[in-house]
């Protein structure tokens, strides 16, 4: 075939191709399902929407979570426990802070930093978390190097190594308990004054007792089942502190968690910490 002929054939085939092109059929639906069912493809987190708070309240659990001590403990954000390497809510753990050592009081002057537990949750200073259990801390106290907050290791400003900070696991068992007990006494006596002065407004969902036969933390049937299903018993007997025992004085003290939140959490913390060493 000569060159012009080949070109002609090529052109003809192109033209004929254009003639036989299939016409796309019109879709039967008005809008594409991509748009009408957009929630399937949006990739946004799904939620059940309610325009009415009463409707949502009716669906929810009958009693409120915000006034329950266990809910408060379980909803706190998860942190890694440095001892068991398991994550747990931070209210169930102890905060350990890396701070500047008190030079006068410290034993070893060459060590400018120290690791110390705090009883209140604070935001400042490098922090790590360890188990709230005296038995575990006592057992693993030799590996307390691992409790150093990781932010201290990554710092560019100052390298902190093993030789730079003091840890004394004894503080843990003595000072920490002492500090907890001190604030417990203070909070308990002020709460007792408050309870005695103020007439009962809300129901008590927490009962403080001092009974050697009961476990440290337990739940029992509520006296007013229409309001709350169960009351929480916090037994102060394992604390073995004469002053606290005198304050409780073999009574059953009813507290409402929403009013005495910090006191109840403090007692829980102390009981959980000592749960292992008393028996």
């Amino acid at each position, binding site marked *: 075939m000569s060159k012009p002929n080949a070109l002609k054939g090529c052109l003809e085939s192109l033209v004929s191709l254009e003639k036989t092109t299939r016409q796309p059929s019109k879709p039967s639906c008005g809008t594409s399902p991509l748009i009408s069912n957009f929630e399937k493809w949006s990739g946004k*987190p799904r939620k*059940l*929407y309610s325009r009415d708070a009463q409707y949502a309240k009716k669906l929810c*659990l009958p*009693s409120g979570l915000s006034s329950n001590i266990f809910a408060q*403990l379980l909803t706190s954000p998860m942190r890694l426990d440095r001892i068991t390497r398991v994550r747990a809510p931070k209210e169930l753990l102890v905060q350990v802070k890396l701070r500047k050592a008190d030079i006068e009081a410290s034993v070893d002057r060459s060590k400018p930093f120290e690791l110390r537990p705090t009883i209140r949750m604070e935001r400042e200073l490098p922090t790590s978390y360890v188990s709230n*259990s005296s038995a575990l801390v006592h057992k693993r106290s030799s590996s307390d190097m691992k409790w150093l907050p990781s932010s201290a290791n990554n710092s560019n400003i100052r390298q902190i190594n093993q030789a730079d900070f003091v840890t004394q696991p004894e503080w843990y068992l003595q000072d920490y308990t002492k500090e907890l007990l001190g604030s417990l006494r203070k909070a308990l006596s002020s709460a007792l004054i408050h309870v005695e002065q103020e007439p009962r407004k809300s129901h008590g969902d927490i009962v403080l007792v001092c009974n050697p036969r009961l*476990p440290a933390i337990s739940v029992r049937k509520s006296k007013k089942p229409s309001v709350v299903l169960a009351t929480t018993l916090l037994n102060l007997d394992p604390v073995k502190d004469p002053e606290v025992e005198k304050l409780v004085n073999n009574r059953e003290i009813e507290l409402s968690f929403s009013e005495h939140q910090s006191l109840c959490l403090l007692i829980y913390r102390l009981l959980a910490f000592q749960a292992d060493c008393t028996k």
Partner: protein
Amino acid sequence: MASRGITITTKKAIITSKSALILNHDKFLPPTNIINEYPHDDVLRMCYRRHMRLKPFISQRSMIQTTYVDYVRYKYKNEDYPKKCRTSGMGHDLPVNSVLQQAELSLRFCLQAVMYVKKGVPDESSVSREIRLSRNMLKNILAIEHEKAKLIAQNPRQNYPILRETFSYISPTAHKSSLLLRFNALREFDMCLIGFNMCMGTKL
């Protein structure tokens, strides 16, 4: 809606820049008076199915969805919950809710965790707080379940009986054995969870 950005409204949902808000809830809610109107096994099956329908609401990530599904399945099929309560030694003379009541309330807890209330309506702040709390709690429960599954996968022969069958990690004498002391974080979490269940009547 107070949030900025485009809002697309379809027949079944309102999609904002942050979330897809589903309008029709019938598929997810338990029928009214479910316990008295249906046979025992059917109630359990209905609650189970509704739990599973909530799967895409729990999380976007498939790993968390799998954890949720495994958790619900374990709760319904394998777990001996009364034994777990007895081992923990938490309650004395508690009236125990029936299994069906527990199942319904647990479903309500999960529903509460995936709700969203319109901003600015009366009572919105208190209800939203409850929703946020239950959502955080469900997330923490799933995280702990994941930790348990991880521990079981590490050493099934040793850890499965401890965590799933005899529940010895939760017993009051667990601190005496150095093996069980390793599960201290799980123990405290589950003790609190049992206490929560006793107060609320759920079975989480």
